[in-house]
Each structure stands twice: as structure tokens, then as C-alpha cells.
């Protein structure tokens, strides 16, 4: 069973992920890829608290995750790879060309320098370039916060504007 979702979400483990996606997809594990979290016991403890009993969680740096991707694809149960920002996903895609075929933009929220594209996606020009670079590698990039919502393809995402 491959990793069902490679998701960019600045809230990392939260309700939409564990309930919204986790239950319909029967997700059994979360791989949280973040250099900062991977280096902090305290951060890991915080996120571990948010993981429901039917799921396990691993905390990996980008380097460790790039090594682990093929083994993840071989696991028998479905899971999700979570990163907090576009840059981290781009590093992961670059480190293992071809290993990630689709990226889900699930939540990148308001910050200085970011333009509102959707209610839950705000992007800087550098982040837009990052998403385009992944698409140029053949990765299908789309935005979708919850399973019931329509996936918004990258080109539409980058030409959308949202009321803030």
C-alpha cells in the first residue's frame, strides 16, 4: 500500500488530518517530516498527543525521510507523509526524484509576503515557484483541504485569489 497522501499543512497533525482524511482513508501511520520537530523531543511529545490510538507516528528529518521513502511505499498499511511548508516538500521531491507522484496542498496560512489564493492557501512568489518546480518534475500538485472538497489543480490555484 503506497503512501496515500503527501501533504503540505502548516498545522501538521490536527483535526483535518487525523479525522477528516485519517478516517475515510483508514490511515494507520503518519510520517511527520520536519527538521525542527525531528530535533525536538518536546515538539514530538506535543504532536504525539494528537495522534489517535489507531495510528502510529514517526518524526524524520528531510534527509532521513528521503532514505525512508521506498520502505514506506512497501508498508502493508496506508499512511500519510506530512510537511509544514512548500520548501520542505520540494527538498523531499528533489532528494528522491520520482518517489512522490502527487502533492496535496492542505493548508498554508496567512503570513507576510504571501498572497491569498484560497481560503486555506496563501503563497509567496518563492513558494509558487517551488510548487511549479515540483510540477515540472511530473508531480501532480493540487490543493484540497478535506476529502469532500474539490481538488484545485495547480494552474487554477496560482491564478485564484481569495477574499481575506
Amino acid at each position, binding site marked *: 500500500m503506497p503512501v496515500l497522501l503527501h501533504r503540505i499543512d*502548516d*498545522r*501538521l*497533525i*490536527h*483535526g483535518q488530518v*487525523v*479525522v477528516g482524511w485519517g478516517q475515510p482513508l483508514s490511515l494507520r501511520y503518519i510520517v511527520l517530516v520536519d527538521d525542527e520537530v525531528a530535533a525536538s523531543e518536546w515538539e514530538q511529545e*506535543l*504532536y504525539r*498527543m*494528537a*495522534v*489517535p490510538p489507531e495510528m502510529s507516528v514517526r518524526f524524520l528529518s528531510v534527509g532521513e525521510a528521503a532514505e525512508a521513502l521506498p520502505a514506506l511505499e512497501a508498508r502493508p498499511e496506508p499512511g500519510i507523509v506530512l510537511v509544514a511548508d512548500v520548501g520542505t516538500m520540494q527538498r523531499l521531491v528533489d532528494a528522491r526524484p520520482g518517489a512522490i507522484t502527487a502533492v496535496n496542498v492542505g*493548508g*498554508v*496560512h*496567512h*503570513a507576510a509576503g504571501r498572497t491569498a489564493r484560497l*481560503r*486555506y492557501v496563501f503563497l509567496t512568489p518563492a513558494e509558487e515557484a517551488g510548487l511549479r518546480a515540483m510540477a515540472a518534475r511530473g508531480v501532480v500538485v493540487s490543493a484540497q483541504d478535506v476529502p469532500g472538497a474539490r481538488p484545485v489543480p495547480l494552474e487554477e490555484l496560482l491564478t485564484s485569489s481569495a477574499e481575506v
Partner: protein
Amino acid sequence: MAHVVAGHGTFAAGIVSAVQQITGRGDRFVAVSNEGQGGAELEERLARVVDDAGAVVVFTDLPAGSCSLAARRLQRRVPGLLLVTGVNLPLLLDVAMAEAGDPAEVVRAALERGRQAMQATPPLAVTGG
């Protein structure tokens, strides 16, 4: 002093409006929604609300939700801040009606009330396993 209720969508505003309708004490709570906010932004917003309200308790809806995580982070910066997850209306009503006292004691009693309020009718048989 007011407590903070934080949750998804309009959960917090809704449950506080219910407390107001039932007891007239909705002003004992400040409602916060996580809608459209990233983790760091939500933590800062929660920090401001807790500070402004002089709150010692934050109630949240979902243990795994971003409000609960933001509150846990805030606990590092605000000593003594208490987080209560999985809040329901009977629990919150109990807090609203409690006289001022040790917040931990108020919460302890309210948790008991909130748990007891979850009942199926007719009662469901206990299954094995």
C-alpha cells in the same frame, strides 16, 4: 476574569451562545475559532486572548485539533494555564455556574459532570472485548 473556549468553525461561539441562553453567563467565556489560521498565528491569537481575559483555563473541542496544540504550546509560556479538551455543554455550564474558587477544583467537578452527561437512551449493553 473569563475563560477561553477555542474550536473548529463556529463551535466556540455556538457553545458560548448556548451557555448565555441557558445561564446568562456567556460573558464568562471568550470564543476563538481556528478557521483560516496556521499554527503559529493561532498560538499568538490565543496568547493575546488569554492575556486580555486573564484566563487560567482554555477549553477546546478536539484533543488532536490545532487549538489544543496551540494551547499546549502556550502552556510553556503561561505557567498554570490549564487545558481541557473535548469540552461539551454540560461541562461548560458547570463551569459557568461555579462560584469563584480554585480553577483546578472547578474544572475537576465540571469534567465529572461533562462525562456523566454522555448517555445513550435506552442504555446500551456493554460489549465484551
